[in-house]
Structure formats: C-alpha cells, structure tokens
C-alpha cells in the first residue's frame, strides 16, 4: 500500500535527495519554532496582564448593552467605560448607569437609543479591554433586507422609480415579469458597482466620478444581460427582454449603488440592500397592479381617470406601509 510514492508526498529518509532537502528545510523549521515561542510568550504575558476577559457584548434595545466577563469586574463606575459608534469614534455615547448582574455579567445603560443593527466599539479602562460590538452576519443581512424592502420601501417611502412603477403596473402579468427581471438586474449591478467603488474609485480617490461610473456600469450590465439572454435563452429573452431595456432609466437601479457608496457598506450589506430593494419594488408593483386592475372596473370621476387615481392608490399604499416604520427586528 505505502510502497508507491506519489510526487507530492514528503520524501522518506534513505531516498536520494532527502538529506539535502532536510538540510534545506532545517533553518526554516528553526525560525518557525522561534516565532511560535515568541508568540506564545506574548500571549502568556497578555494573559497575565488581563486575566479578566470580555466574553460577549450584546446590544439590548432600546438603550442597554449586556456584557459577559470571564471573571468579576472590579471597577463598575461609568467612567471606566467608553462607548462609541464605529462611524464616529471621537464622540463617546454617555454611559449613564452600570449594573452588576449574576454570573459575571454587567449591564450598561446608555444615554441614547441603540440599534441592534449598528456597529459600535466598547473600550474599558481597567482592565484594558476593547471590543467591536456588531450584529451577527445573519442579523445584519436580515435587518438590511427587510428594512429596505418594507420599512424604507423605495416606491412608497422614498418615492424612487415612480415612472416605471406607474408605467408597468397596469397588468398583473407585466408587473410580475418586471419585478423578477428588476430584482435580478439589481443584485447584479449592485454587486458590480460595489466592487468598482471599493476596489477602484476609493483607492484612486476618484469618488467624484461615482455618478458617471455607476450609470455606465448599469448601462453595461443591462446591455450585457440582454445580449447573453438573447443568445443563450431566446425564450426567456422574448418574455423579459422588453423590461431589461426599461431598467436603465429607472432611478432605483442607480440609487442602490449611490446609497451603498454613501454608507460605505460592506459586500454583505450591499447584497442585502440590492436584494431587498429589488424585492420591495417587485412587491410594490404586484400590489399596485392588483389594485389597478380593479379600478378599471370602477367608476372614476373624469378628471381623475388614468394617472391621478393611480397616484391616489399609491398614496393609500404608502399610508399602509407607514405601519412598518416602527418595526425593529432585534429587541
């Protein structure tokens, strides 16, 4: 079994060349050992210095922060803690009260409302500890997704993409097709623009070209998808091709990259925002098309026929969507 020697297996002693190879790898192994020892020494020193470790930090809405330590904390006066948002590390948020709880837990009460989806930083003076307080990946993904789809629905609360919205929401079929195409293109352009913005524009300090680059990206992606779809899936292209061309003139498709760039969002947030706003737009289109099919049969006063009544309908939907505004997913 073991007699066959494959080229990528380490050489066994006794074979020609093994001795020289061992001699060559010896200094490398030695330096590795030295490095390891140094790292261990540093770790040991740190362990001696900070025997109390911060095991977890979690935001408890509306204004508390729950901490769990490995040993009881000695100083629990508010001055011992410094709490800031990740965006503004120079402006501390006032710590108004500190309370000990069972099992080496400490609960901080802060002077302002906290959000379960924000990034914060906690620094402790004694023992010297610091920690980034951030939501888990899934929490972040779901928060951004749902808030962009429902709370900040692009159509009903940010009023973007209205031209297309009123244009294609007359029939349920078209609205579904547009919604699906739109969500797909949105995710695609969102990710491409995010990559261009964070890997090219920021590095070269060319952020003033954002508008030009993003609209170019959108036009390019749409053209690319159109060509690809026509060559590979002619049936799909026949059904969805017409919507693709409409997408270029939609403001939402441009607003998503701009919002991402404004908030310096990470890849995951960008993805969630693109998916959420595409889904929110599709939802709005579907709801609106259902309602408009009914107004066809209703008796509408003459001056209100056509667009005005559609606007009034959109107003009613916006009113309903206001109900989402207090929604918080992480209490």
């Amino acid at each position, binding site marked *: 079994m073991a007699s066959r020697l494959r080229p990528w297996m380490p050489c066994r002693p006794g074979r020609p060349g093994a001795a020289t190879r061992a001699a060559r790898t010896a200094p490398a192994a030695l330096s590795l050992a030295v490095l390891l020892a140094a790292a261990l020494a540093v770790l040991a020193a740190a362990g001696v210095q900070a025997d109390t470790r911060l095991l977890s930090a979690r935001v408890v809405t509306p204004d508390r922060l729950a901490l769990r330590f490995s040993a009881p904390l000695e100083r629990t006066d508010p001055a011992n803690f410094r709490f800031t948002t990740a965006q503004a590390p120079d402006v501390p948020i006032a710590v108004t009260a500190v309370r000990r709880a069972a099992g080496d837990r400490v609960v901080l009460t802060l002077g302002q409302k906290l959000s379960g989806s924000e990034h914060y930083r906690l620094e402790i003076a004694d023992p010297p500890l610091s920690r980034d307080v951030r939501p888990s990946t899934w929490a972040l993904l779901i928060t951004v997704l749902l808030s962009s789809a429902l709370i900040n629905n692009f159509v009903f609360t940010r009023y973007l993409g*209205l031209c297309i919205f009123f244009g294609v929401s007359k029939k349920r079929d078209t609205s579904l097709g547009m919604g699906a195409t739109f969500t797909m293109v949105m995710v695609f352009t969102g990710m491409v623009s995010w990559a261009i913005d964070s890997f090219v524009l920021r590095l070269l300090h060319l952020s003033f070209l954002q508008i030009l680059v993003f609209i170019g990206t959108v036009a390019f992606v749409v053209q690319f998808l159109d060509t690809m779809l026509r060559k590979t899936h002619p049936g799909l292209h026949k059904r969805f091709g017409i919507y693709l061309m409409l997408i270029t003139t939609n403001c939402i498709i441009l607003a998503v990259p701009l919002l991402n760039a404004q908030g310096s969002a990470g890849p995951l947030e960008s993805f969630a925002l693109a998916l959420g706003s595409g889904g929110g737009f599709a939802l709005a289109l579907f709801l609106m098309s259902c309602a408009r099919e009914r107004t066809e049969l209703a008796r509408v006063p003459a001056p209100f026929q056509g667009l005005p009544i559609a606007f009034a309908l959109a*107003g009613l939907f916006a009113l309903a969507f206001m109900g989402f505004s207090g929604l918080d997913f992480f209490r």
Partner: protein
Amino acid sequence: MSTVLLPGPAPTARQLILNGIFAENPVFRLALSLCPAVAVTTTVANGLLLGVAVLLVQVLSSVTVTLVRGFIHPRVRIPVYTIIIAVWVSAIDMTLAAFTPALYAQVGLYVKLIVAFAIIISRLEVFASRQPLVPSFFDGLGMGLGFLFALVVIGAMRELLGAGSLAGIPLAPGKPLLFFALPAGGFFSIALLMALFNWVERRTTGKSSAGGAGGTHGV
C-alpha cells in the same frame, strides 16, 4: 402630442417656454420624472433647489447635444446622451454641495439621480438632437422652468397644508394637516393637482384631456 415638432414656421422662444410650462408641463402633463416631484417637495425651498438643478442640467445638456450632434453616430446616441447628462449632473451636484450644504443634505441623493430622469433624456432625443441651437436652448429653458414651476407648486401646497408655513415663514399656528408632509400625502397632492390640471384643460378646450390621463407616461 409634441406640438413643436409639427411642420410649419419655427416656434418662437416665447412659445417654447410657455409650451414647457403649461401645454407640456413635464410633471403634470407628460407625467415624466415623478420621483423627485413627490420626494423632495415637502417644502418650497427643497423643491426650488431641485428645480434649479434640473433647469441647469436640462439647458446645459440640450445645448451640448445640439453642438455635438453631428459627431454622434445614431446607434450610440443614447449612451452618449447619458454620459453628457452625467457629466453635467456631477458638476451641478458638486456645485450645490459646496454652496448650499444645508439644503443639499436633504435632497442630495435626488440631485445625483437627475441623471436617470426621463424628462431630460427624452427632450434630448425628441428636440435637441433635431433642432438648431437657439430653439434647443429655449426648449430646455421651458422644460426646466415647467419642472421648477411644478416642484414649487407642489412644495408650496404641501408646506402650507403640512407645516402651516410658506418658504419657511409661519402662516398658521401648529400643523394644520400633517398628513400632507408625510410620504403618502405627496402622492395625494400630485393626484389632486393632476386632476385639477385635467379639469382646467377640459373646461378650457372642451375636449377630453390627452396628457396625464393617457398612457404616454413611462420611460
């Protein structure tokens, strides 16, 4: 429906401007670029800022397209128009950010989104790419003024009803109808104003309206 493209004597500057403000008002009649019309019009000042930005972008891109249209191959004209608009929008965006930072903080995103406004590119396609420099300039001016007019009217209505003030000057105590300052109120204001325009049109011409009520909106 574009009256200015009919054969006959060239339209005068006055006709073109009035056409943009009333007969083909971008918001109320053509129903184009509605997003900013609802989004930023909670106060007169916001509407004015965005209106001025659109006016400048429209005039400048109309003039630019007229000047360079001989060099643009017809098959790539839409991307080229988009780039021309994007250049002017970037310039106006940075100018407004520098000179009116407080207002810009509220409407900044929408200023950037002027680049995707249907009204601008449709005027370039319909008018500026076919007409000489001077009429293009006045057409751009008329359309921009029509847009500015619409935004200021909607802004005034919503500010008056929602916040009880006009251009920042308090007129009524408290907040009479806060509803109109909310997102939903924007949609209702436009519905009411559009219906008013249709009603006036029916009264004056005696025929069924063609503009906002028809299916001409969209791209």
